[in-house]
């Protein structure tokens, strides 16, 4: 069986993007994306867990009976989340406190469970690791985009507090977009996340439609097809 690595990559990043298309992992997506730094941190943590759990589950896929596969997956995922949690406590303690409950909650993130069940338990290790990484990066990208949008609208800054994640060298990364900004509380609150995500999904659909239009413009236009010309049909009549 040959593996189409390109398709796995594209699926994770775009066509099957966990946040924009599958709409999985919405709880952390909506809850923590109030700033870029939160988004990047949660994105990295989720990606690491996703890649690790995909790797492990794919390795053990032949030894796990179907009946108990979900508990096994959860235990594998939970051990990875525990690793990440301890790591964050050790390295970025302040960030760990800001993200709070959403770090342990990665266990219940549907993206991770979904990829474990739908992909890693059925595919070889190399494909599963790539899938986990790409899904994670796709998820992180949406998180960061939404985080940037909400931070810019809500507090008028970008990349504030990045030193929590990247250490002292990031102290002055903060970009103040508008001086003396009043703050737009709506963007920071959860409703702003819903609206922001809706706009991002709309944007993706627009881009997809444009791409499709361009492709069909390139391909020679089909002339009138033979067969039935009835208007009201359900499905293809040949």
């Amino acid at each position, binding site marked *: 069986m040959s593996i189409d690595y390109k398709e796995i990559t594209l699926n994770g990043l775009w066509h099957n993007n966990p946040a924009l298309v599958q709409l999985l992992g919405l709880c952390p997506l909506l809850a923590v994306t109030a700033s870029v730094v939160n988004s990047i941190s949660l994105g990295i943590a989720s990606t690491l867990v996703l890649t690790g759990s995909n790797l492990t589950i794919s390795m053990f896929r032949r030894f796990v009976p179907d009946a108990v596969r979900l508990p096994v997956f959860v235990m594998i995922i939970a051990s990875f989340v525990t690793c990440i949690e301890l790591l964050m406590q050790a390295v970025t303690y302040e960030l760990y406190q800001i993200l709070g409950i959403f770090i342990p909650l990665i266990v219940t993130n549907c993206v991770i469970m979904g990829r474990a069940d739908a992909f890693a338990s059925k595919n070889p290790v190399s494909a599963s690791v790539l899938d986990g990484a790409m899904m994670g990066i796709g998820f992180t990208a949406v998180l960061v985009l939404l985080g940037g949008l909400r931070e810019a609208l809500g507090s008028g800054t970008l990349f504030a507090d990045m030193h929590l994640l990247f250490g002292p060298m990031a102290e002055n990364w903060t970009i103040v977009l508008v001086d003396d900004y009043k703050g*737009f509380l*709506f963007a920071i*609150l959860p409703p702003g996340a819903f609206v922001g995500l809706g706009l991002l999904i709309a944007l993706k659909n627009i881009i997809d439609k444009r791409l499709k239009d361009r492709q069909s413009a390139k391909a020679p236009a089909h002339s009138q097809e033979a067969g039935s010309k009835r208007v009201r049909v359900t499905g293809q009549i040949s």
Partner: protein
Amino acid sequence: MALIRITSPHVHKPVNTAGIMRLVILATLPGLLAMTFFFGWGTLINIIWASLLAVTFEAICIKARNRPLYFYLKDYSAILTAVLIALALPPFVPWWLTAVAVFVAIVVAKQLYGGIGQNPFNPAMVAYALVLISFPLEMTRWTAPFMLQGDGWNILGFVDTLQLIFGGWSEHADAFTSATPLDVMRHRGGLTTEEAWRASDVLANVGAWHAVSAAYFMGGILLLYKKIFSWHTPAAVLISLGAMSTLFYVISPDTYADPFFHLTVGGTILGAFFIATDPVSSATSNKGKIWFGIGIGVLIFTIRTWGNYPDAVAFSILLMNLAAPFIDQYTQPRTYGHKAPNSGLKGKA
């Protein structure tokens, strides 16, 4: 055979959207006059500014959606939304706050959902709720009613008001601001209702609010008389709010405000007559409208009394907008020839 003979033509003047919208705008005039009389030029300036913005945003959206521009602009719906927003906002909000509110109402709550007739929520109330949540400081800066103050109405002239709204909030303007009666009632510490009435200057000036409500009430009656909407929604809102507040006032007059206060202060009358009756976002049948109104009345009392925000008309109407399709499902009237109404889940089976 005795048939009723009426000579032709039988066709009445057709009622169109623009005509209805114009009439509703006209009916807000008494309220606008009362607001201007008691609170100064701010509301009038806000209405003009909001209408300009609303028409601009509407035009841009319609152009972007490739719809006929003039056809949609001439129905006055954008202007009505702008007028309702401006009437609901405090009179001296800064210009950018009105701009945000109108943008949200026209672009997000109306055009993104598909334009006039397609919006599940009342655009003016979506905008009001959004700015209330986002800018609590600006949104709670009401003025004390000028008319009832010592210096009278010439505290703040037209030009001063323009400067206040477009030039930024100056320090000296803080002298005019005060809480609304509902605010005082909500955050009165440990005082009983009666002590609050005695202690607060704001509540001493509550007459201005009664007058504004009375003016809106007149406008509402005009619309009822013109049959722009039926009595069901406003009556249900007012009666349920009245009943709810009477019940609690009778139980404990120290803890709860009296029913008259609830009915005539804040946005109750404006909401009941001008916003809850929005034909697009409210329930459809008469029975449905009654349930819709009862929901609004009960929610207004609940949020005002136990919630975090002093006034609740916008939130109540939005929540009931959300429930309107559900209400419609269960209140479908019996059609002629059928024994039972085709409503509820069995209707769809």
